[in-house]
């Protein structure tokens, strides 16, 4: 038994390094997608202290809109632009209808409101686009669908080109976001709002504009995530479950930290794959990916209650 837990998995890893690489790559790709969703959460949380549960459904909604528009015969790239427009309208609507009346309410109320938005979007999306699984318009967007074969250590490593594209686009997006937040006027306003609402308001930063902007950025991230994940697994409401995965990613990385979201996402993506392949399937009957991330985050939180990169929690009476 001890051998099965502590020795055999590692022996397996060393004996088949190409398989280990393959597992890590798969983990990395899903980790990137978790990180992207977590990034959407972090942006909204930092600027408004809203724990946005709707990020997952925004991913689905963006992907569905894209595919739905294309099915109506609109050229692929115009679809992307139109979808961005839809996400902007969504951001404005959410800000106007839901967030503005709820300013200053306790966190849990705002959290519940985003769950309300989630339910609304699920129902709305199903009525408009239908619930069946759809194929992402990968080729029409010019994303290569071949795979690259590498042969490290005489083994075989298969890298799908769309995964490579996803990783590259995600990296670009993160860099662009960091530049935007740190170097531009708007970005600095977002960060100021995150530090102190009242102080930011008093120097003339508009809360409403920033909120719309932040939700719109979250919408853009949702679209990118939707395309990348949809290319792997098709577009359906099952995508929503990846939103749950973003929660432990956030907790692991810390709610306020962009670095944390990325590192947390990659860590969870790779570790859960490793655990599933080397421990979960042989010892526990498989499907451990549903809970592994949460338990991992829980254990980390026991030692660092603010997550790995979160702001230190200081409490006063």
């Amino acid at each position, binding site marked *: 038994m001890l051998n099965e837990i502590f020795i055999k998995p590692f022996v397996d890893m060393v004996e088949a390094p190409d398989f280990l690489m393959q597992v890590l790559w798969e983990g990395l790709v899903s980790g990137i997608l978790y990180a992207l969703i977590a990034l959407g959460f972090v942006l909204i949380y930092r600027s408004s202290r809203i724990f946005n549960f709707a990020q997952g459904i925004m991913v689905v909604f963006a992907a569905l809109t894209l595919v739905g528009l294309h099915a109506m015969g609109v050229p692929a790239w115009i679809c992307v632009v139109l979808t961005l427009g839809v996400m902007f309208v969504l951001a404005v609507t959410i800000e106007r209808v839901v967030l503005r009346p709820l300013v200053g309410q306790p966190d*849990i109320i705002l959290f519940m409101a985003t769950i309300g938005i989630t*339910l609304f979007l699920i*129902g709305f999306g199903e009525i408009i686009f239908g*619930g069946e699984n759809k194929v992402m318009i990968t080729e029409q967007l010019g994303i290569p669908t071949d795979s690259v074969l590498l042969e490290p250590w005489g083994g075989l490593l298969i890298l799908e080109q769309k995964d490579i594209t996803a990783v590259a686009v995600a990296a670009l997006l993160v860099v662009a976001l960091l530049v935007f937040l740190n170097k531009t006027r708007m970005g600095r306003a977002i960060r100021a709002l995150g530090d102190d609402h009242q102080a930011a308001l008093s120097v003339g930063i508009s809360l409403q504009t920033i909120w719309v902007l932040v939700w719109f950025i979250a919408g853009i991230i949702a679209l990118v995530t939707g395309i990348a994940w949809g290319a792997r697994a098709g577009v359906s409401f099952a995508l929503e479950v990846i939103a*749950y995965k973003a929660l432990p990613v956030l*907790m692991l990385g810390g709610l306020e930290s962009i670095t944390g979201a990325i590192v947390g996402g990659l860590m969870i993506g790779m570790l859960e794959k490793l655990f599933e392949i080397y421990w979960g399937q042989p010892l526990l009957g498989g499907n451990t990916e549903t809970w592994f991330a949460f338990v991992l985050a829980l254990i980390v939180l026991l030692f660092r209650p603010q997550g790995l990169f979160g702001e230190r929690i200081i409490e006063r009476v």
Partner: protein
Amino acid sequence: MLYRTAGQFKTSYQADQALFPVRQDAVLLGVVLLFAWVIFPLTASEFAFQTLLIPILIYSLAALGLNLLTGYAGQLSLGTAAFMGVGAYACYKLVTLMPWLNPVVAILFSGAFSAGVGVAFGIPSLRIKGFYLAIATLAAQFFLVWLFEKWGWLYNYNASGAIQVPNLEMFGVYVAGPQASSVVQYFVVLAVVTLMTLVCINLTRGNLGRSWKATRDMDIAAELIGINLMRSKLTAFAVSSYVVGVAGALFVFMWRGAAEPNLFDIPLSFRILFIAIIGGLGSILGNYLGAILIVGLPVLLNTLPEALGLPISSATVEHLNIMIVGSLIVFFLIIEPHGLARLWALIREKLIIWPFPH
């Protein structure tokens, strides 16, 4: 005028602290209980029992359990459904291992297992707070549902992987299983729910409840005035999980009749959280109002298009349902973030001074 409190003098501290200091409240409750215990069982149809009365009671009880933890002790939990599952599976094991056991005793006892699991997952709450804690409860949610699926002993290794409620007798009457009648099940549920509510009301008014509220309002301050946070938080998890576990056992044994692991998945947790929040966090009454709304609304929406003769497919109705529930949640949060219970409290205030404006 109906609610005038003038003339009801309190002459002792005891009278002032009574459960119903205002006579009209007691009368109102009496009327509600009369309906619940006498009039509904006499008049309700099979359909009403199965789609409204029994589920409303069970959902209220589950929301009550969650409300003790989230509304009174301030510990956000997203894992309610999993704890219901623990109650249901524990009850199943109890009645299959010990068939002679009285089913109601089994249901009440199965809550204890849920309480144990709840305390185990509540331990992180001593270090983790707020949304971070919600993740600890989500860990419970996903892990336990996975366990229900993989641990064959829990469902006696049957091929379907689901638990089937056997026929259970109590005093010569079937109370659970395919042969039980809805009226009997309704009475069992009602009795358990009434008992639990009474216990919970008194718990929240007592020493324990006050320490929970202090913990909720500001835990560091509570610790400074001498409240043992560990005791306060863990008892909240234990009592809450107990009530939720009993609700879970009732859910399967008195209503669904069978359960698969994914029945206890996260949508059920959210459903109960909605009930607690729309009803009002930190209130007992709110759970019932919330459950009536959340359980009753889809039933109403399902029957409405037919009654009006509108040709809408059932799939569309279901999606419309989700949409409407979602917007209602947002709507209620905007008009009254403290829930339906606060709405009732405001109406009651108005009634007391009516017809005078002040």
